[in-house]
């Protein structure tokens, strides 16, 4: 009977469609959870960087850097981005000695901030693009989740290669008998 096939077809289509909706809902949930986790991680790393900067500032007795670090630690959500940018500017302006353990910690925490922000940006982008999908908007599958926001700061990179010893830029006379490759001497 042709009528039967029509019913079967509709049932199959409905099943496929609801499976797709279930998958999309799961996807929306997963992307939002991840964006939230990334935000928490970014927040923790920014705190750590500010704390490490405060330690360096106390040691070097640089008042501006210390103030910038305090402001970054205490900033309200609305002022956070500009406070972090100020801290980055201060950090890039002061001379940092990579031999100092406190500075090394600071450089490491800055690197982690760069990574955390990179990942956070990607995950927020994924979540926002999921929110723009037609069925997500029509059925408001995203209504249970707050809209993730980008954290817009300048790249807080600090130079992590120690500057080469100055003596190397001056030609040093080498004894002519010395072979250019050390293993030859072995």
């Amino acid at each position, binding site marked *: 009977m042709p009528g039967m096939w029509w019913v079967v077809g509709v049932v199959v289509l409905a099943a496929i469609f609801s499976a797709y909706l279930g998958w999309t809902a799961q996807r929306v949930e997963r992307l939002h959870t991840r964006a939230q*986790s990334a935000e928490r991680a970014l927040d923790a790393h920014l705190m750590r960087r500010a704390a490490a900067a405060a330690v360096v500032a106390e040691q070097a007795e640089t008042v501006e850097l210390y103030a910038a670090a305090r402001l970054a630690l205490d900033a309200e959500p609305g002022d956070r981005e500009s406070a972090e940018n100020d801290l980055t500017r201060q950090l890039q302006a002061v001379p940092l000695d990579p031999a100092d353990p406190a500075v090394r910690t600071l450089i*490491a925490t800055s690197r982690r901030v760069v990574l*955390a922000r990179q990942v956070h940006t990607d995950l927020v982008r994924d979540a926002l693009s*999921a929110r723009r999908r037609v069925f997500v908007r029509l059925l408001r599958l995203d209504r249970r989740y707050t809209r993730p926001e980008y954290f817009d700061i300048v790249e807080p990179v600090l130079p992590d*290669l120690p500057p080469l010893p100055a003596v190397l830029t001056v*030609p040093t006379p080498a004894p002519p008998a010395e072979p250019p490759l050390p*293993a030859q001497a072995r």
Partner: protein
Amino acid sequence: MRIGIVSPYSFDVPGGVQNHIMDLAEALIELGHEVSVLAPADDDADVPAYVVSAGRAVPLPYNGSVARISFGPISTARVRRWLKNGEFDVLHVHEPFSPSLSFLAVLSARGPVVATFHTAMTRSRALAGLQNFLQPVMEKITARIAVSELARKVQVEHLGGGAVEIPNGVAVRKFASAAPLPGWPGDGGTLGFLGRFTEPRKGFPLLRTAYVALARERPGLRLLVAGPGDRDELYDDIPAELHDRVEFLGLVSEPDKARMLRSVDVYVAPNTGGESFGMILTEAMAAGATIAASDLDAFRRVLDGGRAGALFPNGDQASLTRLLGELLDDPARRAELASCARLVVGAFDWPSVANRVLEVYATAIEATDGRVFDDEWS
């Protein structure tokens, strides 16, 4: 931490990606982590202990060369089983958008996934066309690594995701401790070149012309060439009286490559373009050779703006000849450049590269389940 790494290509055939994965896995194991590498391999193939076979690989032309990969339902089952048994803290896939184990692993993955992109894929238009289809796969990847600026650019422009640039590592110890070939570099000075000398962008003709000019004035000067190619083709363009001062090694193994680089006074990289990173330069730096290279962006970056190796204007024959002459006559400058190179190459040493990869792992884990690590990863 428990780390699962997926190689898209079989270890039977040597290649850049395979070497990268093996060196990374060994560096991570040395740092005290548990590592399992899933790779296509024949069941009786001789592979390191940390490699798990995902079945036989089939040859498939991909991205301009023949890659040996596995793909299909049996491979999928093996990938799933490996993931289930491994209970990894983080999954690290390489080249996830090639039809390979990496792609299958991303599809089946649950937790944090880190992906490394090696090639600056030229088929980016095809990739951009597939973007909608690939989006759900892309979403499973938590953090992305690109091994070069070029690979990162492809990521950003065509796949709409950021990527952290972490360069290829170099096993500094292996290169620094290799023994020079017997009788090399000798007293008269030796120039070295490694690569496909027939390929125009490698710039070998520049070096050949410079060598012929210099060898006429310096009776002891020799040239050491390694890489794929036909011996006769190399000698055809060199005057007959210089033939016994030019040595051709052909295609060399990894250990022989290290020995070859240890056997030269000046390593010459006259490449005219198309280099995204300059792996060979980091290897020559690790071997302690003095480097003369064309001033491509990639080379300039690796050589720290010319402090770790001498640069000459790209394609400039006269400058190259003059520079090589100066370097050969000035052992002090050679020693200075080489010692500077040894310092700079430290950043490319596998332990420090592996530490940077570990930081990405930590970031991926934090972004997936909200844990934040207390200890520093460097």
